């Protein structure tokens, strides 16, 4: 990675927030290596019955477009303007006040004016104006209208796959215009003519077939879980039982597939298993509903619905009472804002009640799905867990709010409460970079590919820079988060910008601090790194803080 990319200082140096003199209406998109994603492969589109599969790459001069592609796109636009009030209203009411301009992480990290949310939306709005508004039809370019050309399409592809649908702009917009909505529509329109990216369509095809994005088949799923059970036994001396596809349990537990397959997600997965064992939770996992995440969200509403359907279907088949969901960002956007509407009603389930504390999760009484942080925070509040936060003393922790749980849900204080109970060193990043103002990892919404690395490092700069701030100031060495995409993409981001800081799930910290009945003497954490309790850790932290101060 290091030899191909410019040094961090260099990358940052060429960021300028001054737009070019010429206006933006006449596009010429340069597909520079490292700043875009490869196209969707035909096999994935075929498997999902999607139109116009073709072999092409974005940097090709010629794109394999159907003859009537403009008609298809405009017809698709007309259709969606009638189906989504958000789309119709957001096309009409932007006043271009510019409040959103410097709120996008991609703009902050690239200085490219078309990454200002307002201009990203204008790429589509200019077409809307020309073809769908009275004044635009009469005045055309004078009223900011543009014709839909291949160049415009290429520009759409470049910039609507340079938006992570994080909704930060929508927090600052006086009308709540949400670029995520506009990006979703633009992507749907491009899908109509076969223009999509591999990192979305292949995981979606995998997920449709095997139940998870990674394409792990049922026996592989079982292997992964067994492996985790073995690891947990090595660490704690306790063999936990994880039912898979078993009927008659109370709860179905659904996680993003990276949790049982990728690092550092895996340690959080061990944390879930330890926690459930300790409280004696009556649950099952499912190899079919082996993915809570949903790359369909990044593709189209239809795809989101198609991939999401398995969760209620599996809950029904297995006869559980309610569903518990693991740490994941966009997964929770789907579960919180879409699932019940799309695939509900879940009238075959019961209103969720914690079997341990008897707390009713009133806020989930219709969807019947509870976030693991809500569940665990309730356990801790009711003193159901024996925790020794000193076991995380070797971690100086900060918390990264993931876009979707914060801006499409409002899950802010639950994870913080947990972290404060399981660790002794918790420091917040600056206030304009956390909670509803949090910055995206820069790789969400299907953009977390290697070929897109430079753009990811740019988009992730605001997040990484805030981490660097608390790293330098407080010696923070662990960024906790509750999102599978974060856990996959923040490590390389931090390696580039803040090399001394790791990434973990909140439930890794929980598992590590959890005192289990009958556990063996432990001197290492879930990662096999030595734990340094109490005063010794404090001393080491102080040294680290001093060193950081001297360095910074």
């Amino acid at each position, binding site marked *: 990675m290091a030899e191909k990319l410019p040094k961090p200082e260099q990358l940052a140096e060429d960021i300028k927030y001054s737009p070019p003199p010429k206006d*933006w209406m006449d596009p010429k998109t340069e597909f520079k290596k490292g700043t875009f994603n490869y196209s969707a492969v035909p096999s994935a589109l075929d498997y999902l019955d999607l139109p116009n599969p073709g072999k092409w790459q974005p940097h090709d001069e010629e794109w394999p477009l159907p003859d009537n592609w403009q008609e298809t796109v405009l017809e698709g636009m007309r259709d969606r303007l009638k189906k989504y009030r958000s789309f119709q*209203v957001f096309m009409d*009411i932007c006043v271009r*006040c510019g409040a959103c*301009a410097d709120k996008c992480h991609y703009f902050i990290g690239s200085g490219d004016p078309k990454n200002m949310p307002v201009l990203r939306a204008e790429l589509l709005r200019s077409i809307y104006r020309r073809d769908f508004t009275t*004044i635009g039809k009469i005045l055309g370019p004078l009223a900011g209208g543009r014709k839909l050309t291949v160049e415009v399409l290429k520009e759409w592809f470049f910039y609507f796959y340079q938006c992570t649908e994080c909704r930060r702009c929508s927090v600052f917009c006086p*009308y709540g215009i949400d670029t995520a909505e506009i990006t979703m529509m633009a992507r749907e329109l491009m899908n109509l003519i076969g223009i999509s990216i591999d990192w979305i369509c292949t995981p979606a095809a995998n997920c449709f077939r095997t139940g998870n994005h990674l394409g792990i088949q049922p026996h592989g799923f079982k292997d992964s879980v067994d492996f985790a059970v073995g690891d947990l036994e090595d660490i704690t001396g306790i063999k936990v039982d994880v039912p898979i596809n078993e009927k008659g349990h109370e709860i179905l537990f659904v996680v993003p597939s990276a949790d049982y397959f990728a690092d550092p997600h895996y340690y959080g997965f061990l944390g879930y298993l330890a926690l459930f064992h300790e409280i004696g939770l009556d649950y099952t996992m499912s190899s079919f509903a082996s993915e809570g995440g949903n790359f369909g969200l990044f593709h189209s509403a239809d795809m989101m619905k198609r991939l999401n359907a398995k969760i209620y279907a599996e809950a029904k088949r297995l006869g559980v009472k309610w569903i518990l969901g693991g740490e994941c960002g966009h997964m929770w956007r789907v579960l919180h804002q879409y699932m019940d*509407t799309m695939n509900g009603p879940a009238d075959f389930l019961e209103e969720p009640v914690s079997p341990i504390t008897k707390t009713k999760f009133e806020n989930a009484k219709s969807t019947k799905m509870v976030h693991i942080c809500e569940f665990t925070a309730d356990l801790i509040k009711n003193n159901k867990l024996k925790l020794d936060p000193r076991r995380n003393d070797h971690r100086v922790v900060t918390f990264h709010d993931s876009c979707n749980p914060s801006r499409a849900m409002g899950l802010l204080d639950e994870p913080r409460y947990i972290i404060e109970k399981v660790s002794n060193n918790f420091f917040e990043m600056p206030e304009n970079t956390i909670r509803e103002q949090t910055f995206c990892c820069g790789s969400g919404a299907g953009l977390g590919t290697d070929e897109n690395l430079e753009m990811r490092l740019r988009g992730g700069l605001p997040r990484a820079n805030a981490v660097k701030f608390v790293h330098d100031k407080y010696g923070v060495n662990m960024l906790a988060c509750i999102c599978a995409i974060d856990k996959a993409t923040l490590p390389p981001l931090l390696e580039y910008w803040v090399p001394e800081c790791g990434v973990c799930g909140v439930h890794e910290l929980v598992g590590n601090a959890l005192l289990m009945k009958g556990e063996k003497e432990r001197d290492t954490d879930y990662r096999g790194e030595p734990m340094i309790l109490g005063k010794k850790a404090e001393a080491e932290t102080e040294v680290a803080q001093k060193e950081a101060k001297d360095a910074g």
Partner: protein
Amino acid sequence: MSVVLSLFAIAVLVILPLIGTGLLQLEYLFGVIIPYAAIILFLVGMIYRILKWANVPVPFRIPTSCGQQQSLSWIKQNELDNPSTFWGTVKRMALEVLFFRSLFRNTKVELREGPRISYTSDKWLWLGALAFHWSFLIIFVRHFKFFAEPVPIWVDTLQLLDGFFQIGLPIIYVTDAVILAALTYLFLRRIFNPLVRYISLINDYFPLLLLMGIAATGILLRYFLKTDIVAIKELGMGLISLHPVVPDNIGALFYIHLFLVSVLFAYFPFSKLMHMPGVFLSPTRNMANNSRMRRHINPWNYPVKTHTYEEYEDEFRDLMRAAGLPLEKDK
């Protein structure tokens, strides 16, 4: 370029009534027909647009949550920025519409060497926008005095408050000064802030300059040029009572003012100015965040092709059996 074209358009809009009433004696056209036409366009256009929006369904419940959600009883919800009830949403909308809550959050990014990025609070846009909109509203209401006899007491009171400082004669209204300052700021911001200039279209400069023209002519009429208020009120009362009369003694400047206002009304429904009713229909702001508590219905929720467990088990049955996983059909 966009600025020049907008200025040119405004110039034309000023010259038209000047020639029309000064030379061609078209007072009836500019004093009665055009204002009526503008009002009709405004009302019909606005109602049409609002009905059009309202007829588009809201398939999903997609509020942008800007604070702590309602979850466990002991976690304090941020009801204003992340409401979960109808009344909470009303409060959120009130804050948004009356005080521009979201603009109040505005920050400015700065990138320094290092790199070191900082975000500082930047309330100027909020202040400028709020100052303009409130002044406009108060000035609009103050104008009721031209359309009602006797002048309603609350209009009188508003005037009294607006002229609170009792500077000059005629008394200078605070809002007249504020609206000019605010519009000037908003205009200069568009010109001199490179990012805002880059995104600005004629669609942005034109209404701003139009409003400046209206404010300027209004101020000229009130403070600087002798204007026959009685005659103007006669015209106003005639218009509102649908018995229009065109008194003499009304100067061309007044017709310019009236014409620019007419253009504003006529232009309104076809422009970004529709953000005024639009903000009330924005799904990220006007919906309660209660999607896990109450099922939101999508009126066009159609079935999609899914992959069923049966299909899944059919494909992987042997592997599942070998791995010891339970099966629905073990054959």
